[in-house]
């Protein structure tokens, strides 16, 4: 599905399926409030966190007002409602990632906790001295630092799959880097800096050929591309609710059923146990074995509402809109003289545009455009090794989502031009 471009027009017509970002925008209360007293909010930092539609906020409120109880514990009606809402959310998540069973869905605080859960529970049992873990050169710190730590603890070796000049993975080097010693290959589905969409299946096939597992960081792809664990053939996949219009404080670890079955627990506490004696315990079945204590029930329920919201709009339509807007933004930002990082075309990337204006430090830039109500990110984007690879200390980054329009991009460009003026 491709949105029609109106030649010369400032705004895309609603795409097939009736996707119209101006209408979508009305679902998000945050846009009703101006910033800096009277400025229209131009929110271009959805790769950091997305705004929340009314449907999600109201779902959380409804939980607290009519279903609030501890899940899996109460015999009374309120407890049943809470348990049902929580387990229904698990089914929603399973469908969303096309998992064969909800038993594969473990709830967490977010991508970072999901990955650290794998590090602690799977990693300590399966990675030993002399083993290797492979990560890509474009990973977010959350999919890099845990593996540094695990290697430090176990004596395993961390290896890196490089990227090329356009910010694409050097999959041609997979053969040499994936070896009999490789236990795990960690790859982000979509880069939060370059926007690159990675050929995860190709990486998974190479890993599986030597018996290694594959962990996919879907923090950026789940909200913007959608994910299909069967098609990706991954063993673990992690994402965060807050980046897909859901509440903060919730996320998912998908794990292949057979892998989770063999995995020791993560946290000790209530609910993850089967029987406890004073000196030992036996543990619950999956996925409960990995969910200790009172979980983030309301947030998980809100996450399911967010998934319902974006899937009702259609991930294809969202992707088509973002592709169209990204193409527009790549041109518009380039027209200011900025250097843009990552793949040249909108087909190869998600709605993330990292750039630098010559002479203007990105922090100065972010402060200056903020005066106009334009929210962009400046910094290393939790990817310092990638910054070194690009040869810059930091970049500015504009990232787009379903509520952004060409007006937003135009506002950014106008602000960039003004900043250039001050510095020239």
């Amino acid at each position: 599905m491709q949105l029609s471009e109106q030649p010369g027009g400032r705004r895309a017509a609603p795409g097939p399926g009736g996707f119209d970002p101006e209408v979508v925008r009305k679902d998000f209360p945050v846009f009703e409030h101006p910033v800096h007293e009277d400025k229209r909010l131009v929110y271009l930092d959805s790769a950091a966190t997305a705004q929340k539609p009314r449907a999600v906020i109201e779902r959380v409120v409804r939980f607290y007002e009519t279903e609030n109880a501890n899940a899996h514990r109460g015999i009374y009606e309120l407890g049943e409602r809470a348990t049902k809402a929580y387990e229904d959310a698990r089914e929603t998540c399973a469908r969303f990632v096309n998992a064969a069973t909800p038993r594969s869905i473990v709830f967490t605080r977010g991508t970072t906790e999901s990955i650290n859960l794998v590090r602690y529970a799977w990693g300590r049992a399966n990675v030993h001295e002399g083993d290797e873990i492979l990560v890509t050169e474009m990973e977010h710190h959350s999919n890099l630092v845990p593996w540094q730590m695990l290697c430090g603890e176990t004596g395993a070796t961390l290896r890196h799959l490089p990227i090329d000049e356009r910010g694409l993975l050097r999959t041609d080097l997979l053969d040499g880097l994936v070896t009999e010693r490789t236990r795990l290959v960690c790859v982000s589905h979509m880069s939060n800096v370059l926007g690159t969409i990675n050929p995860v299946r190709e990486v998974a096939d190479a890993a599986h050929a030597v018996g290694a597992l594959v962990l996919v960081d879907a923090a950026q792809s789940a909200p913007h591309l959608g994910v299909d664990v069967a098609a990706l053939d991954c063993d673990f996949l992690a994402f965060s609710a807050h980046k897909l219009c859901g509440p903060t404080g919730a996320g998912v670890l998908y794990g292949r059923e057979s892998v989770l079955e063999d995995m020791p627990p993560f946290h000790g506490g209530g609910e993850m146990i089967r029987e406890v004696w004073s000196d030992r315990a036996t543990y619950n079945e999956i996925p409960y074995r990995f969910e200790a204590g009172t979980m983030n029930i309301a947030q998980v329920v809100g996450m399911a509402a967010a998934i319902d919201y974006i899937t009702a709009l259609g991930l294809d339509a969202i992707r088509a809109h973002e592709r169209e807007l990204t193409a527009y933004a790549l041109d518009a930002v380039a027209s200011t003289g900025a250097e843009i990082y990552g793949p040249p075309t909108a087909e190869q990337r998600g709605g993330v545009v990292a750039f630098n204006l010559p002479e203007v430090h990105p922090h100065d830039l972010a402060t200056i455009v903020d005066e106009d109500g334009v929210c962009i990110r400046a910094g290393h984007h939790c990817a310092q090794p990638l910054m070194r690879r690009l040869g810059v200390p930091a970049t500015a980054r504009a990232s787009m989502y379903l509520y952004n329009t060409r007006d937003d991009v135009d506002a950014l460009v106008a602000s960039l031009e003004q900043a250039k003026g001050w510095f020239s």
Partner: protein
Amino acid sequence: MSLEDLYKEVILDHYRSPRNKGRLDPHDVRLERNNPLCGDEIELFLRFDGDDLEAIAFEGKGCSISQASASMMTEKVAGLPAKQARAIAESIKAMMAGEEDGDPDVLGDLVSLKGVVKYPVRIKCALLGWNTLLEGLEEAGRA
């Protein structure tokens, strides 16, 4: 002061033509500090003559506010007794924390840095040089 004025009247002059930029040899103290969230970096050189801060210079990269503030700092404190340099640094910090208004008699042009207070995330940038100076004075036993 508007952001435009802050940049045009205070920051950009020093950012484009930083004073006392470069290494200082010989020196008594050399310190490298950075602002991990922003990536701003400062390398500060101090030379003392007794209790006086005889000379000061800096290297660095980062946003205009961090670099301009460091430049303004070197201009202000070069040649002063260490104690007085320290007092100025403390004053700037208090001003940036919103605890003091900033006394023009003590701070002179530096009062204009107060314009950064309105941009809380940038305060760390403005203070990077000053915090490094305080550490340097401490290290030299002059504080």
